[in-house]
């Protein structure tokens, strides 16, 4: 297929004007900037790295580690400190995140507390959980570790709270990931059937036939009123008895009213979701950008409120997973380059979320929870890890020392703009943080009678070896398992 760049841009500047224009804060309704109390987050979106690995030692610079204690074990530092000192939140992520840094968190230093240290499966489970539901047919190991995907859990809660979105709440979307149906790197070889839109054609079709169900009714009413009023003034402006000076005045009136109508239209959100973009198998950069842009539009248009996307490609021309796999064992520079390439894609997507407006006229990112997770943590050659305070072995696919971006203002539920050192927390705490930021209660989060989320059966040997067992024990009673990172307001 051929990507039509012009068409894609036309979508952004044409039918999607209200989504894509660089909105000025002065144009936003006053109430959108001054929420009195957090409102439920309306959207959750996750991007997951397949064969992604981020070495803890590579981000952020250790000479600027967080110093401000938050909660009992975590610490934080403004991301702006890193940007000011180094030009980016981390070298490997690049400077594409700078503009949205106030609305994201960089979370580091958390680990998988699972019984099976089979790093492949554990890592897959933590990363690719968005592709699993309660009835998934994945391997036993993964089901034990995280038998419920958090996007599925969030979907259930959202649907219960807002039946309006039932028909279009979920979208697992990746142009190439076949969910085990013929893909050499699928999960257990079994196709996973999800009630979701899984490819360009489905999503494009959905967008084309969607007419903004998430629009702000009050803003729409305001827009329509001023359009009607504009007709009244325009009609008089053509009266032959008007002097030229009065005609000029009427011209000003019409412009003024039109401006109000347009601002109201912007605040109302898109009136039609029309997508002209197509895939471009020959250019993976364009293809992934288009896919993520479609998701952003789908979230803005109300086609979905929960979205999950897997990044497979690692460069403009390569998405050969079998070729990527050895990189984690043997080629750290190439692994870093792969993450950096993906970082640009994801950061561009988050910038789009920040630019687009939701149904209340505020930035889409302001009422969204966004999670970008990697499949692996530390990997490959042995090296000294200052986070862990010890020399690590040469194991690839390490499940110790994870890093993620967890952002979005979550309707005021999440503090952002921080590098958060999770203090050796289990990965379940990070996922609980995302879910609580999305507005879920502990009752909605916990599944199948399991306290917390996921598995807490084994303390990571590396952590115990470096810091002692007590560092892990503090996370393992029931109350601790249910806690979020102390960046969720009121959690």
């Amino acid at each position, binding site marked *: 297929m051929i990507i039509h760049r012009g068409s894609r841009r036309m979508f952004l500047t044409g039918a999607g004007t209200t989504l894509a224009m660089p909105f000025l804060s002065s144009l936003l309704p006053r109430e959108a900037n001054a929420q009195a109390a957090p409102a439920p987050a309306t959207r959750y979106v996750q991007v997951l790295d397949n064969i992604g690995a981020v070495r803890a030692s590579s981000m952020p610079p250790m000479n600027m580690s967080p110093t401000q204690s938050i909660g009992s074990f975590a610490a934080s530092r403004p991301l702006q400190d890193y940007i000011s000192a180094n030009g980016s939140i981390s070298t490997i992520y690049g400077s594409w995140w700078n503009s949205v840094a106030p609305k994201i968190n960089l979370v580091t230093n958390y680990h998988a507390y699972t019984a099976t240290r089979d790093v492949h499966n554990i890592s897959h489970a933590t990363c690719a959980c968005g592709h699993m539901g309660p009835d998934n047919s994945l391997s036993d190991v993964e089901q034990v570790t995280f038998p419920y995907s958090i996007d599925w859990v969030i979907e259930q809660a959202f649907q219960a709270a807002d039946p309006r979105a039932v028909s279009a709440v979920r979208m697992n979307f990746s142009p190439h990931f076949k969910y085990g149906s013929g893909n050499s790197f699928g999960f257990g070889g079994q196709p996973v059937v999800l009630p979701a839109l899984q490819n360009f054609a489905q999503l494009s079709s959905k967008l084309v036939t969607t007419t903004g169900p998430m629009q702000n009714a009050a803003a729409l*009413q*305001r827009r*329509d*009123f*001023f359009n*009607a*009023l504009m007709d*009244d*003034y325009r009609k*008089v402006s053509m*009266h032959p*008895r*008007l*002097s*030229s000076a*009065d005609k000029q*005045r*009427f011209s*000003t*009136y019409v412009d*003024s*009213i039109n401006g*109000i109508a347009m601002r109201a239209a912007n605040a109302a959100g898109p009136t039609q979701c029309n997508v002209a973009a197509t895939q471009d198998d020959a250019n993976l950069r364009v293809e992934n950008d288009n896919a993520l842009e479609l998701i952003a539009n789908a979230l803005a248009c109300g086609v979905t409120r929960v979205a999950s996307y897997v990044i497979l490609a690692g460069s403009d021309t390569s998405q050969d997973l079998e070729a990527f796999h050895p990189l984690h064992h043997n080629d750290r520079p190439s692994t870093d380059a792969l993450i950096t390439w993906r970082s640009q894609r994801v950061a561009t997507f988050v910038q789009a979320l920040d630019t687009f407006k939701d149904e209340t006229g505020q930035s889409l990112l302001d009422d969204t929870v966004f999670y970008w997770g990697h499949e692996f943590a530390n990997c490959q050659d042995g090296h000294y890890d200052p986070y862990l305070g010890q020399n690590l072995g040469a194991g690839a696919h390490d499940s110790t020392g994870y890093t993620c971006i967890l952002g979005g203002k979550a309707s005021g539920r999440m503090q952002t703009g921080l590098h958060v050192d999770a203090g050796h927390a289990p990965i379940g705490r990070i996922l609980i943080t995302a879910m609580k930021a999305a507005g879920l209660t502990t009752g909605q989060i916990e599944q199948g009678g399991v306290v917390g989320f996921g598995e807490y059966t084994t303390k990571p040997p590396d952590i115990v070896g470096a810091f002692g067992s007590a560092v892990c024990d503090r996370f393992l009673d029931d109350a601790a398992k249910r806690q979020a990172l102390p960046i969720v307001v009121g959690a």
Partner: protein
Amino acid sequence: MRRLSKPELIGTWRQLFGASVVGSATFDLLQNENPKDPGLQFDPGAIDFDALFTTVSALADATLADPAARTLALGNCDGTTSASCLSGLTDTFAPRAFGRPLTDDERTLYQTYAMQAGLKLAMVRVAMAPAAALQLELDGTVQDNRVRLTAYEVARRLALQLTQAGPDDTLLAAAAGGSLGTLEQVRAQGRRLLATDGARARVTSLLTTWLGLDQVSDPHPTVAKGLSLDGTGFGEEARQELLRFATYVTVDQHAPFEGLFTDKTAFPTSARLAAIFGVPQGAQPAQLSDVRGGVLMRPATALSTSAHSNAILRGVEIRTRVLCDSLPPPPVDAVAARMTALGMLSPLTMSTREIDTVTTSPDFCMGCHHRINPLGYPLEQLGPMGELRTEETVWDDTGAVVATHPLDLHVDDVALIPTLVQSADGPQDLMQLLAGERKVKQCFAKHLVMDTRLRPSSATDACTINEATAQLEAGAPALDALLLAVASEDIFWRAAP
């Protein structure tokens, strides 16, 4: 064509939504016209549609929520888009807003819109329509390069200028019945309107712009202490007292114009006003038995924000507002040079008049001050809070008397007009001179024109101003001059585009 002023909008909304709804509403979003400069600061084209929408929406909400207000606005309407509500919208509400019946197209337009968007938004659309928010006057007939207005346009113009609101039902009926075709018919309606509360609002507006009374500051704390009074809020209290006095003389008493300068009625509604006037406190008007009387000899106009009376400022106000003379601003260098040359003149040893006289004595000062100081010195009989005094008192910060000075109230020439030398021996003399001076009446007539037409006066207004001046000279009440300024032959015409 011009937009309606803020007072005119509020007056019109009072007719549309009812006094109760409008009385409970706030209009802070709407920009105030500058009452200190009638006509000059009024931009006839500027409309803040956002503010209008918010304000009128709130009024419509309140009206629909209140059965009595709803009935007043829409007749027998249950607040829905029932047939009776739609009829109320287009046959009662909108005609009041537009000052005329709707055309068939307009009736269809607004009823259809009400069905689509709801009754409230339809009310808001009507109230914000060009025919409601503007004085359009597009329906007349061209005669000799002028446009003869329709009866409805004449009615709206008359009502806006006399009552700061649209035509009432009686006036609309007169327009419909062909009873506004002659000047006499128009003046008869005007006289009727001047007996309504709307005229009281107009006179208040006129007095506010004429005397620059949009705001009166509180007195200097030292003065308040010296007089053993609480100065907080006194400025506004004094302002209200003056406006009440002026309305009383003009509307209630229908007194001749001179009364505005000499009438001795006061409204000592608070203990401190009573103390300043030297009469018992009470809700009813009291008669002053001293030299004070009229608009220029009461707390609001005499009040000074410094620790002493300000004869120069009083003179400037009379010269510019009452005589309509223009004064150039004092040259900054000259003032600075005088301050340096004189050093600090002490009120402990010199009276206000002595200090002002010395300070403004050079020829380059007297070019203007010979027309200013003589108007302020006779008023030195009033202290800095408008209190009557027999000597000038100087207080320290604690309110203790530290010096007194005898008053010198005589001036050899008040210089009202260049060709006439007139002396005055105190404030009463000055007020008599002002009340009898044609120039003062001409200035008042000019203010009448500017305030009612919301624009600076021009050569085309000369006839109206001269007629009104002559009427005031003949001893007519100010209200009659107001009627004449509005209901002149001009009211039937506008310039052709």
